[in-house]
């Protein structure tokens, strides 16, 4: 499973707060970095959680 983040993401960093093993709020670059190109199977459930929890629905399965 691959993830992508749309440009309208508001960089609130909540995805990192809840799923630190998947996301990192890169403040200097002002964007959210996804820690894996391909999401490891054991983290897929968390990825789906992030898609549901995102404040503006900017996280999608690529």
């Amino acid at each position, binding site marked *: 499973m691959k993830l992508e983040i749309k440009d309208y993401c*508001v*960089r609130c960093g909540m995805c990192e707060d809840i799923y630190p093993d998947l996301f990192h709020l890169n403040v200097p670059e002002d964007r959210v970095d996804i820690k894996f190109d391909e999401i490891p199977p054991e983290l897929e459930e968390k990825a789906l959680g992030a898609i*549901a929890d995102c404040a503006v629905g900017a996280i999608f399965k690529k």
Partner: protein
Amino acid sequence: MQNLKVDIVVMGSGGAGLTAAVTALDYGASVACFEKRPFQAGSVSNCAIGVTAVKNDPRYQAAAFNSIFNYTNYNGDPGVIKAWINNTWRILPFMDKVGAKYKLRAELPLEKVGKGEAGGFPPQTRIGDAYYMIGRGKGHGSAIVALQSRRYFEAHGGQFFVDTPIVDIFTEGGKVCGVLAKHNKTGEEYKVECKAVIVASGGFGNDREMIKKYIGHNYTDNNCSNGGDVLFNFFPTETMTGDGHKLCWKLGGAKGGMGINGHNLVPGPGIIGNTPWIAYDETRVMEEQPYFWVNKNGERFVDESQSSNHMAMGTSIARQPGKMGYIIYDDDTREYLETHGPDFEYFIFQAEHLHDIKGQFERLAKLGNEHAFMTDTLEELADKAGIDKEGLLKNVARYNYYCDQGRDGDFSKDPKFMRPVRKGPFYALRVFNAGYSTVGGIKVNGRMEVINDDGKPIPGLYSAGDCMVGELWGNPPVGGIGNYSHALGFGFTAADSACEYIGIKEEEL
């Protein structure tokens, strides 16, 4: 270099900027909105979940206006106060228009305007019906309102530029005539001819010199480690540098009242994350309880029944040496919190009972947090926490004397919150002021026109949102003064005035 021509340019796309852009567009103006960051929403991307709307009824508006103007000790600008209050009813049709959902949380009867029970805010500032904005997932509603406003703006002919800060505002014969914007990454320049500019660039939480010079606080990192005393953690960015302030002041705009909007917070690892909604542990709830607060000299400095009032605590902490305060529990109160549960609810984390406080303090120590303390004796606590030992012991004895008597001889605290500090181990949290954003700095009148020291408007220059909201207070207290409805109310007003100025709208008296 690209050349554009529009009626109105909006600088910034936060709560105020997008509201002004959409409102001006709907009056028929051609509008371009330039956003410095790669996305919309500004500082409301990370906080507001509720909004206040005063009924569109002169009686309610008059009661709300008098309550706020009186409460600012008359330092607030009545025109600005009116612009906020009399335009908050427009929030509801605006949210319907952009497709953002909300629900009524608490209606305020007329006789209760400005006279409600205290709770987390001063009673005089509770002046309207409280609405809860429906967020998505675990997020907060204002991020959706901003996103939907951007979508509406772009879908109805508004030109939206991200990553493109405005670097200059031009005037001809003293009147605004255009702006220059420049893309952060491509370097592309946009020379825009326009009749009016609405500056909605928010606070200057990332400009250390401005914070020190105009507000007297020292910016610090999330650990408050460099001797600083205010952290801007709620809104993790490095872009809030007061661009709009500097441009307005360059054009002769006067300096308005400035302050910090945010509230008191225990800094450091394990306690605060990127967004205020996510509780790593229960310190936020523990810090709001009405028990025993002291400053660095071990002296009480407030009637602790104000502990959940962010203006009371923010302003009181800002007055203490080192601009810090400590809340201290003994083991009986630790047990009380775990069995009976907290006396005050923190509206974001509802916790019936607190859990394993000892374990949470041990976890924070393991993570290297320098602002949470657990010690067997008060003497040890004084040494570890940097509190004056003699002052702490003297004042704990004094407080325990009053607890045993069931009366607070110092600050008349309600006796039911008088819990002695006697039985070790002792738990303490060091609390600083956390800025969500700075407020104010651009001086405007009640029509959101930027004015000079002589009170004269600079034709075509308007401002709305955090960058001008200091005028609501005159000299803003510290903390507890932010309200999402400010951004919306001022956004509507700025758009109205600008459209009247360019002649596509009549002023309604």
